[in-house]
């Protein structure tokens, strides 16, 4: 067959890797003992996790009063962190599901890690509403089960109940999606494992996968169906999270713009986190040939697009507050920008609107150091966005007599730090135990742009 070379397509995998190269490169890190760098990162992350765990234990033993909350401000760090982590998770689903439906083949190098990131971020998010209950041992009351109190059922009209269903469904579906994608790779690991214990574990987890094309045929269909289901799911989850705010009558929250604004913000922050993680991973594990500058550039473009939507949302909010003629709404937005928490608003604006503008320049999109720094700035900005939405609306409500302020206590900060500890501990364990790149899917795009082979997959 004549060699066909496409000038329109950028190769997705560099260095002319063969099929067995892919297997070796991805699995190799799992063969060695962890490096000193890994141990250092793990010890730091695990220590942060312990700090968070101690803070939570103290909070549960003492009461929610150990946080900086007061009568006026019932939500602060806890719900900010919750929305922040859920948002991070959404990029994983976007990469695995939405980009799959759009046939964006570059997703194959990053989807496994991004999906893992989703699962870990949702775990981090899930902690906050539960500890905010004050009596987390009654968390099961949120589940509608036959009980001896009537039976008294939960109120299905409450956005908080919707939220509980949305988050738990999202976690389950993300996990199932991730695991289904892992099975063929676990079979690859099983077939190359040399130690008996490893072989046993991988054998158990790979469900007896033998690479039969009859199975692959069904597998492809299942993957498509899951992608089709996960796409509206991810939109619904952050929509429902935004309804926690939008269905209330607090100025600044009670707004129809919140669902699209939250979803765009979630994707925006999630891609920033994917970039942060992937830039570290490709450097440490030498995945430069798989996660190429092209991949980083593509993700930067998604950030510009979603960042643009976020910027538009900020502007729309301000305009609507002015145009509505509602004095409470107007006051809230003036207070947001110029009130006591104005600095958080301007931090948010500069991190989320100004910083991503750098990505208009191709040179900067391909400069790993710049991208890394900007991705962290965006993460910070998106945390502040949630803080601004929650705090500025609560501190100044309808009744000036009940106006109040919020200062985070050491426990608030320790819990936030602990959630990062949990996230990175889980991610580091994942990097040691499972293939970080989807071996099978990368093999299917090896010849993308090099010649005519396999480019129609």
């Amino acid at each position, binding site marked *: 067959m004549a060699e066909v070379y496409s000038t329109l397509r950028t190769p997705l995998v560099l260095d002319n890797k063969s099929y067995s190269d892919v297997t070796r490169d991805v699995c190799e890190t799992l063969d060695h003992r962890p490096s000193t760098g890994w141990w250092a990162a793990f010890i730091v992350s695990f220590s942060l996790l312990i700090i968070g765990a101690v803070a939570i234990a103290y909070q549960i033993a003492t009461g929610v009063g150990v946080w900086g909350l007061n009568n006026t401000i019932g939500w602060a760090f806890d719900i900010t962190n919750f929305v922040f982590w859920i948002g991070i998770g959404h990029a994983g689903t976007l990469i695995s599901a939405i980009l799959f439906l759009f046939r964006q083949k570059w997703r194959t190098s990053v989807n496994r890690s991004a999906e893992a990131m989703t699962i870990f971020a949702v775990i981090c998010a899930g902690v906050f509403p539960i500890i905010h209950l004050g009596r987390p041992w009654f968390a099961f009351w949120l589940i509608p089960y036959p009980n001896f109190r009537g039976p008294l059922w939960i109120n299905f009209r409450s956005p908080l109940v919707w939220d509980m269903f949305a988050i738990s469904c999202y976690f389950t579906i993300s996990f199932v999606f991730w695991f289904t994608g892992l099975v063929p790779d676990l079979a690859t690991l099983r077939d190359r494992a040399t130690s008996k214990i490893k072989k046993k574990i991988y054998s158990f987890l790979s469900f007896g996968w033998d690479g039969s094309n009859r199975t692959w045929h069904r597998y492809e269909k299942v993957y498509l169906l899951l992608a089709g289901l996960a796409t509206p799911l991810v939109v619904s989850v952050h929509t429902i999270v935004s309804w926690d705010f939008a269905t209330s009558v607090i100025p600044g929250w009670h707004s129809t713009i919140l669902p699209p604004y939250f979803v765009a913000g979630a994707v925006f922050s999630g891609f920033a986190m994917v970039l942060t993680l992937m830039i570290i991973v490709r450097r440490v594990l030498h995945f430069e040939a798989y996660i190429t500058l092209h991949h980083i550039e593509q993700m930067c473009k998604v950030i510009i697009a979603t960042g643009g939507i976020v910027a538009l949302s900020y502007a729309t909010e301000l305009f609507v507050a002015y145009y509505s003629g509602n004095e409470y709404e107007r006051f809230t937005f003036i207070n947001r920008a110029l009130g006591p928490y104005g600095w958080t608003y301007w931090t948010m604006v500069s991190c989320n609107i100004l910083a991503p503008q750098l990505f208009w320049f191709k040179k900067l999109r391909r400069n790993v150091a710049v991208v890394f720094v900007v991705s962290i700035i965006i993460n910070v900005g998106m945390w502040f966005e949630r803080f601004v939405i929650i705090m500025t609306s609560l501190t100044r409500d309808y009744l000036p007599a009940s106006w109040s302020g919020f200062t985070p206590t050491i426990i608030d900060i320790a819990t936030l730090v602990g959630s990062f500890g949990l996230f990175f501990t889980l991610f580091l364990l994942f990097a040691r135990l499972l293939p970080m790149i989807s071996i*099978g899917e990368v093999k299917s795009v090896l010849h993308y742009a090099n010649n005519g082979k396999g480019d129609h997959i």
Partner: protein
Amino acid sequence: MSRRLLINVFANDQDILNATNAARENGYTIVDAYTPYAVHGLDKAMGIRPTRIGWICLGLGLLGAAAKLWFQIWTSAFDWPVNVGGKPLTSLPAFVPVTFEVTVLFAGVGTVIAFFLVSRLLPGKKPKVVYEGVTNDRFVLVLAEEDAAFDVENVKNLFAPFHIVKMEERVEKD
């Protein structure tokens, strides 16, 4: 009953795809193909019928939706009606979000379980690896030697243009 199988090993996706097409055109019985990843078009080349797993997904999704909608109406309006803010007991719009989530949950989890069951993949099942490297870099096409007319030499000639790596005859025991 035992049958004789012919294992044909290839080194890339295009070769096994062409070989499978050639085998089918020449009337050989294709038992299965084993590949490290989903080779697009191989299912058509083998003549596999489209899977019906989509219908399972649809059915389970509808079941989830119906069950959850019924449950919300039953709990909110019949079993223990509570007046919340003067809203109607059967407030359908408010029931939509949870109904949607449960629809996706039923359809997604159910489809995956159905997939593993139909494909006979279960935790801890002993894999039958047909040829070493089939989960790494080898593409294997398995033909059945069904009648006396089957001649390995003919197959060898047929597959020669497709860079066949190895050919092996095996007897499958039940």
